[in-house]
């Protein structure tokens, strides 16, 4: 008797998502047939992508359209059981195509990944103190700032990675930014919530934490809570007067006290309920504040850089979990991590100029605890080439003190190798300093 055919699952794919081709290929084994769906604009921008993907996966190029329900291309004829994605830019396309192939009704909340929609829904549900207003022009900015009061943050309603953000601390900054920015489509202004330091007191822990959750219908299992390195902000160092904002790392599992961990999971679950989230893995960012936890944003896909961290602590592969969730499967029970792991991508503290270094990937790979080096800024590179990142590497240790030692050695090696410290609090100075926000860092914000 032959085995039953596996369900076919569409995956809207683009480079630099939370799962690469190999992770998808491997995670799908004996679970589903992954069918890669690539927007024609993505295919044109990455000429090798479709050729490479087609060597290992079924792959189709979709019409270049922002209305995939009206022009789905070949999707309806592919026999798909559902459609999902691991890339933030593909969320709306994947959701629309998923509804199309399933014949599913419109979602409970229209445009749930729009940060303005999230702000309004979460505020109305009593889950967030942040207030927000749409901004499409300089006049809108002045009006919204007067309405909300400062300090505020101007940011795109739909974007990941910290692009296009401006911290606006007073009317002078608002006026200066209104004069400098050229692109105004799809922005929002939101009130800025003060951050509280991470209670663990570790020098390189920031005030953001994230919760990865799998939803099967409305049943939710929280896969893990992660600590973060502080968000690095270069004031006015982005284009058109924006601030250059970079996340610098994730650590699994979080060392928040048990009561805060419980509150983080509970708040995340209630935010997902309010947004009507179903059948997917989500990445929710929370801010530690003096009055408790604040939801910063909910992302409708697995977090970037974190799948490997879960695997390194013995967890089920979250890429497979996400594929199973998209097929409506019940999630596995919560797991107990075996060890601790971190993805580190610290930025240069001084962002201008070119990189001067003799550091090679093998110098970092040979440090104890370093598992992988995916990127390393090279001698002569513009610092902006890797979005100001020194490196992108992964470390593991059996326990948190061990991991702290690994991170200390990595940061020291980077500082020496680049003759420029990372955009993090100096560990020695921070350890000796009284607790409180680091004066060299901006308050972390959603990125």
């Amino acid at each position, binding site marked *: 008797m032959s085995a039953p055919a596996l369900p076919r699952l569409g995956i809207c794919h683009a480079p630099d998502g939370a799962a*690469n*081709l*190999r*992770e998808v*290929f*491997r995670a799908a*084994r004996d679970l589903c047939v992954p069918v890669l769906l690539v927007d024609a604009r993505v295919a044109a921008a990455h000429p*090798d992508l479709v050729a*490479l993907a087609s*060597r*290992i996966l079924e792959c189709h190029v979709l019409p270049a359209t922002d209305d995939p329900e009206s022009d789905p291309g070949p999707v309806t004829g592919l026999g798909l059981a559902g459609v999902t994605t691991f890339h933030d830019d593909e969320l709306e396309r994947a959701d629309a195509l998923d509804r199309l192939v399933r014949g599913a009704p419109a979602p409970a909340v229209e445009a749930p990944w729009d940060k303005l929609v999230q702000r309004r829904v979460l505020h109305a549900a009593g889950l967030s103190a942040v207030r927000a207003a749409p901004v499409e022009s300089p006049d809108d900015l002045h009006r919204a700032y007067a309405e909300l009061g400062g300090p505020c943050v101007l940011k795109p309603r739909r974007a990941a990675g910290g692009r296009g953000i401006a911290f606006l601390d007073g009317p002078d900054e608002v006026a200066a930014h209104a004069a400098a920015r050229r692109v105004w489509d799809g922005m929002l202004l939101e009130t800025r919530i003060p951050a509280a330091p991470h209670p663990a007191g570790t020098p390189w822990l920031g005030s953001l934490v994230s919760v990865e959750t799998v939803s099967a219908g409305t049943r939710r299992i929280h896969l893990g809570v992660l600590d973060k390195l502080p968000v690095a902000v270069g004031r006015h160092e982005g284009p058109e007067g924006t601030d250059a904002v970079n996340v610098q790392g994730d650590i699994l599992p979080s060392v928040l006290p048990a009561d805060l961990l419980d509150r983080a999971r509970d708040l995340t679950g209630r935010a997902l309920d309010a947004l009507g989230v179903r059948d997917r893995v989500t990445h929710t960012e929370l801010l530690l504040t003096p009055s408790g936890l604040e939801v910063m944003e909910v992302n409708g896909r697995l977090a970037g850089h974190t799948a*490997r961290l879960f*695997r*390194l602590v013995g967890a089920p592969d979250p890429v497979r979990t996400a594929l199973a969730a998209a097929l409506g499967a019940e999630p596995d029970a919560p797991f107990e991590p075996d060890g601790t792991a971190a993805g580190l991508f610290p930025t240069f503290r001084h962002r201008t100029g070119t990189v001067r270094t003799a550091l*090679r*990937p*093998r110098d970092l*790979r*040979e440090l104890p605890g370093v*598992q*992988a*080096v*995916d990127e390393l800024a090279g001698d002569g590179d513009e610092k902006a080439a890797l979005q100001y990142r020194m490196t992108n*590497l992964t470390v593991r240790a059996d326990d948190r003190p061990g991991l702290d030692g690994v991170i200390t050695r990595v940061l020291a090696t980077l500082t020496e190798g680049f003759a420029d410290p990372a955009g993090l609090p100096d560990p020695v100075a921070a350890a000796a300093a009284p607790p409180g926000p680091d004066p060299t860092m901006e308050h972390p914000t959603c990125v």
Partner: protein
Amino acid sequence: MDTKIDDIVRAEWCEVLDVTSPEPGDDFFEIGGNSLLAVSLVERVESRLGVEVALEDFFLDGRLETLVSAARAAAK
């Protein structure tokens, strides 16, 4: 013969990943390799040994020892 194959696969692995002391159980994709680098590695091994190594198999199991075994089997 097997020793020569092992040396070639190890040398290409080290070159592509920029490592010096690979362990047989190292997983190419978990220590910094990506899909494009994997294609490059497999093609380099194929070119030097004059054999064909299944890319799909390497994507499923990215360990050095598995690639060495696949290269040995392909050379027979």
